[in-house]
C-alpha cells in the first residue's frame, strides 16, 4: 500500500445520534477514519457497536449529526438528497446481508440495471455484464432469476452488481452472514481476487471470523468509537 495515496474514504470526527424515546443514543461517536484505495478492510465489533451506522454514513445513506465524510474528494455533507443518490450510483457499490437483488430480473439484468441508471450504452452494458458474471464465476447463470440461485450465488450477483457502476469502493454489510461456511469462503475468494487483481477497495462490516481472518485491516468499534485499528 502506498502511503502517498489520497484516501478514498475519510471521516473526520463523525458522530450520529439517534433519539430513542427521551434518550439520545450516540451510535457513532467522533470517528476519524481513512481508507486508502485497494484496502480490504473489516469493521468489526459487538452488536450495537456502530458498524452498520458507520457504514451507512460512509455510504451516504445516512447523514452525520457532527463531523464530515469525504469520499473521493467530495464532501458528502454538502450534497443534497438527489446529488447524494447520484453520487452513490457512480462512486459506491453496495453489498447487503440479504443480497437484495431485484427478484423479477435475471442475474444479468440485475447487474445491467445499475448501468442502465448510469445511462451506459447497450453495448457497454452487455459487455460489462458478461465480464462481471465471469469475474464472480456465474457466466453460465446470467439468465437465472434470484429465486433460481443459491444464497452464495445471489451474493456473488450482488457483488457483481456493486461493481457494475465502476465504483471507487464497495461497502459490504455482513456479506457472509446468511451463507454457510463453504459458500462464505468462496465469496471471500471472489472479493479477495477482485481486490488483488483490480485493486477494488472493500470495506466490510462483519462479525464473521472468516472475513476478519482474510481482512488486511481490521477496525474494531466499541460503543461507536474506534477501539483499535490494526493492519
Amino acid at each position: 500500500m502506498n502511503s502517498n495515496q489520497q484516501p478514498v474514504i475519510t471521516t473526520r470526527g463523525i458522530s450520529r445520534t439517534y433519539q430513542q424515546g427521551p434518550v439520545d443514543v450516540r451510535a457513532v461517536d467522533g470517528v476519524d477514519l481513512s481508507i486508502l484505495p485497494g484496502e480490504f478492510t473489516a469493521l468489526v465489533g459487538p452488536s450495537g457497536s456502530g458498524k452498520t451506522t458507520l457504514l451507512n454514513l460512509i455510504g451516504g445513506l445516512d447523514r452525520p449529526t457532527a463531523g464530515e465524510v469525504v469520499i473521493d474528494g467530495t464532501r458528502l455533507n454538502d450534497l443534497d438528497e438527489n446529488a447524494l443518490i447520484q453520487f452513490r450510483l457512480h462512486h459506491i457499490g453496495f453489498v447487503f446481508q440479504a443480497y437484495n437483488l431485484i427478484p423479477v430480473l435475471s442475474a444479468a439484468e440485475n447487474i445491467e440495471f445499475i448501468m442502465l441508471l448510469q445511462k451506459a450504452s447497450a453495448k457497454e452494458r452487455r459487455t460489462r455484464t458478461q465480464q462481471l458474471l465471469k469475474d464472480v464465476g456465474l457466466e453460465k447463470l446470467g439468465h437465472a432469476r434470484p429465486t433460481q440461485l443459491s444464497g452464495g450465488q445471489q451474493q456473488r450477483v450482488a457483488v457483481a452488481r456493486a461493481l457494475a457502476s465502476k465504483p471507487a469502493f464497495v461497502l459490504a454489510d455482513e456479506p457472509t452472514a446468511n451463507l454457510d461456511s463453504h459458500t462464505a469462503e468462496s465469496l471471500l475468494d471472489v472479493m479477495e481476487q477482485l481486490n488483488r487483481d483490480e485493486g477494488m477497495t472493500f470495506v466490510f462490516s462483519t462479525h464473521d471470523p472468516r472475513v476478519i481472518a482474510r481482512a488486511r485491516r481490521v477496525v474494531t468499534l466499541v460503543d461507536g468509537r474506534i477501539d483499535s485499528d490494526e493492519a
Partner: protein
Amino acid sequence: MNALWWTLAWRNLWRNKRRTVITAGSAFFAVFFAVVMQSVTYGVFGKMIEDMARLSTGHVQVQDSLYLAEPTPDHSLELDAARLAEAQKIDGAMAVMPRLEAIVLASSGDRSTPVQVIGIEPAAEDSVNRFTERIRSGGQYFGEPRADLPEAVVGAALGDQLGLSPGDTLFTIGQGYHGVPAYGRFRVAGLLELGNPELSKRLVYVQLADAQHAFRMEGRVTGVVCMADPAADLEDVQAELAALFPDQAARLWSDLMPDLEQTLEGKLAGNYIILFILYLIIGFGLFSTVLMMMSERQKEFGILISVGTGRRTLAAMVYLEVALLGLLGVGLGSLAVWPFLEYFDANPVQLRGDLRELHEQYGLEPILPVMIEPFIFFNQAAVVLGMALTVGLYPLRVLKRLDILKASRS
C-alpha cells in the same frame, strides 16, 4: 424508455399473479359493464329520438325564425323549390320534406276536438315513416286524387274519439295566413296507427297542397323537415341548411323538443350516478392494490434508492406498473365488450311481456337496441384508465417521503 424498464414493470405486475388478475379483472369488468350500460342507454335514447324526429320535428327543421316562439301561419316561410332541391343534396341529408302545420278545431257529427293538421308530401313521408303499413284495416293512406274532397289520414285514436271511419267527412276550422278564417273539409282516407297515443289523439295528415289551400298559404310551409343519415353529424347538416336558408332558422331536434332532451339528460344523469358508484368501487379496489404493493415493497424501494436509483426514476417505474395494470384491464375490457355489443347489435334482445306491449303500443320496435360508437368505448376506458393513473400518484408521494434506512430494514 429502455426495454428493461418495461420488462421490469411488466414482471413486477406478475409478482403477485392473483392480485394482478383480480385488480385487472375489476378494471376489465368496470369497462365492460360501463360500456354495455352506456351503449344500451344511448341505443334506446337514439331510437327514441329517431322515432320522435321521424313523426314530429325531423332531426333538423328550417323554420321562420319567429315560428318556434309563436307557431302561427303568419310565421311561415315561402317554399322555394330550387332550394328544397338543393337541400336534398346536402351531405348527410336522407330526406328533406316540406310540412305545413296548424292547430285547428276538428269536428265530425256532434263531436269536436283541437287537432294538429300537418300538410305533407305523402310519398316522401311514407318513405320515412312507412305510414302505408300503419293504416288501420279498411282504409288507405292517400288514394288517387279526387275532384270532390281533399283527403285526410287521421290518427287512429282521434278517429275513434270523433267516431270517424274511412269515407267519413272531417271538418276543420282554424286561422289561416294573415288571420283569415280557414275552413277545411276532408274525406277520411284512413286511420293511422301512430303508436304514440298522444300523437294518435291529435294528428291529422293532409296533402301539402290541400293544407296550403285550406290555410290560404299557397306556396308557403311552416317548416322544411330534414331527416339525417344516422352517420351524419347533425350540426354539419344544420350548418349546411342554415347556409342554404340564410333568412330562416335551422333548428336541431333538441331545440324543437326541449322536453325530450331534458328527459334524456335526466336519465343519463341517473346512469352517471350508477357509473360513479361503480367507478368508486373500482377506484378503491385499485387503490388498495397499490397500497399493498407499496407496503410489501418498502424494503426493495429502500434498497433501490440506496444503490443509486433516483426517487423520480423509481416513481416513474412504479407509475408505469400501475399504468400497465390499468391498461391491461381497460384494454382487455374494451376488446371483449366490442364483439359482445356487435353480436347484440346484429341480434338485439327481444323484449317480452309488458315491455314488449308498451313498445308496440308506442309504435316502437320491441327490442333493446345498442349503440356502438367509439366515444362510448373511449369515454369509459378513459375514465377507468384515468382512475388508475390517479391512483398511481400515491406511490409518488410515498417514494418522495421514503426513509431509505427504515425501508431497507423493514
